[in-house]
């Protein structure tokens, strides 16, 4: 897919919690096809400490309305600045970037998201549904209050939750969920995004259980288009760029 730079108009900016906000962005021209786990590089003008763009996954796409949604966690200065953008403002994106999750073979697929790693999972499920697959979600949060967009996720599949304090769903993190620890339930493929330690543990579990597992990584990026070689991930084939060879990798390829 051809990459492009484009000014989007902010349709809305909704605060979902202290830490998270949801942006809906309208493109002037027709959107290109976007694949699940692809991301955009957002230009955050202004602050001297947000010199570089910020990579954010595509959370949702509406091709009829020509909109892209981003689900963003306030992690530092750049995302804090972005959280203050107003309806009608313009936001410049470079997109669509990266490879994508591979197509499922059947319905036995689990979409796992931890924290802001849930962001790409919504569009992934929607995309797979369009091809006739019905995914199951396993989403991990700190507590009940942190749960994001539960209605929306429910539209695209069965949703299971873990919360660290047990205030909703099962207690612990996604790794602790019975879905992953039961002999009765089987998945053929796991797609995951979230903090590296979680992805790594999940990957090891999947390898152990002989489940194909693809993870979407969030390495620090400077360019997002394969030019700087800053975002490299060590793999069995050497250093690979997360922005072009990834963000999605089969866990079997990763050296981590």
């Amino acid at each position: 897919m051809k990459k492009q730079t484009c000014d989007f108009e902010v349709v809305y900016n909704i605060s979902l919690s202290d830490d998270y906000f949801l942006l809906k962005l309208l493109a002037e021209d027709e959107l290109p096809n976007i694949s699940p786990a692809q991301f955009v590089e957002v230009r955050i003008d202004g602050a001297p400490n947000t010199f570089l763009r910020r990579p954010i996954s595509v959370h949702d796409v509406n091709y009829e309305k020509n909109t892209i949604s981003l689900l963003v966690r306030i992690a530092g200065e750049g995302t804090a600045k972005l959280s203050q953008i107003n309806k009608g403002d313009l936001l410049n994106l470079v997109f669509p970037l990266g490879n994508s999750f591979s197509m499922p073979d059947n319905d036995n697929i689990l979409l796992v998201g931890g924290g802001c790693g849930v962001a790409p999972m919504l569009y992934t499920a929607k995309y797979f549904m369009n091809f006739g697959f019905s995914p199951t979600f396993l989403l991990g949060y700190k507590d009940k209050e942190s749960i994001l967009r539960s209605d929306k996720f429910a539209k695209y599949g069965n949703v299971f939750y873990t919360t660290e304090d047990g205030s909703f769903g099962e207690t612990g993190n996604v790794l602790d969920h019975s879905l992953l620890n039961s002999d009765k339930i089987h998945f053929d493929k796991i797609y995951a995004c979230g903090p590296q330690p979680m992805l790594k543990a999940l990957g090891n579990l999947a390898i152990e259980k002989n489940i194909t597992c693809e993870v979407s990584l969030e390495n620090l990026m400077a360019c997002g288009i394969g030019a700087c070689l800053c975002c490299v991930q060590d793999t069995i084939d050497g250093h690979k760029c997360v922005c072009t060879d990834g963000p999605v990798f089969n866990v079997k390829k990763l050296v981590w």
Partner: protein
Amino acid sequence: MVNLNIDFNGLKLKNPVLTASGTFGYGLEFEDFVDLSRLGGFIVKGTTLLHREGNPYPRMAETAAGMLNAVGLQNKGVKVFCDDIYPKIEHLNTNIFVNVSGSTVDDYVATAEMINELTNIPAIELNISCPNVKEGGMAFGTSCASAEEVVKAVRQVYKKHLMVKLSPNVTDIVSIAQAVENQGADSVSLVNTFLGMAIDAKTRKPKLSTITGGLSGSAIKPIALRMVWQVAKAVKIPVCGLGGIMTAEDAIEFFLAGASCIQVGTANFIEPDATIKILEGIEYYCKKYGVKDINELIGSLRS
């Protein structure tokens, strides 16, 4: 019509906008954003004799109006460049420079020799200033003696345009520029990155796997510009200026300071079409101020 053609010591550039090594891949990465044939040229990423995996992740840290990198010359080696990459880019209608790095003089020579055979590569940029490799690299660019040694050796085997890229991490960049000029360099480019460092106060760890890395971007522009001005006054060969060029106005400042052409580096990461915007901005500036030929601007700083 504004004339933007530059005669860069024999090398004809259709305009003075080039791209900096390590920030523009092999050009192809930017084809979605930039019509490469519009560029005066581009410098492909640092190429070494042998394959290099580069430094471990993390390799990047953002700083105030700049960034640190510690890529460490990751590349597949000159043979893969010649066999696999060159065929994909040789048809591009612009000047392609190969940025050559090495750990020893012999490395540099062997690499340059192979590049010399590539018909459609009119020039190399000899990188004696990379701060991100343990041996060699920057060390060659920080003393006149070692700079002379490597340039002299490469000059013997490399028959086309030899541009030498200088390190800014020195007390007296002018003497290094003169030293490489004396050894037959056709031009100099400056600056490479400044050796810097960033620490994560929370974890108390360095932000880069290599602790230190190279600083680039807007932050360094004032120092880079000063060095270009000093060197351009002191050498007869032309100077290619770079360091923090983000806008056409920045580029104009470098021309006024004496640069015959410029390279756009980190700006490509922020605006993938930065080169084209800068090129168009230069043309606009010339029209606005009645400059008929870009060559009029070069070194024309008023006092």
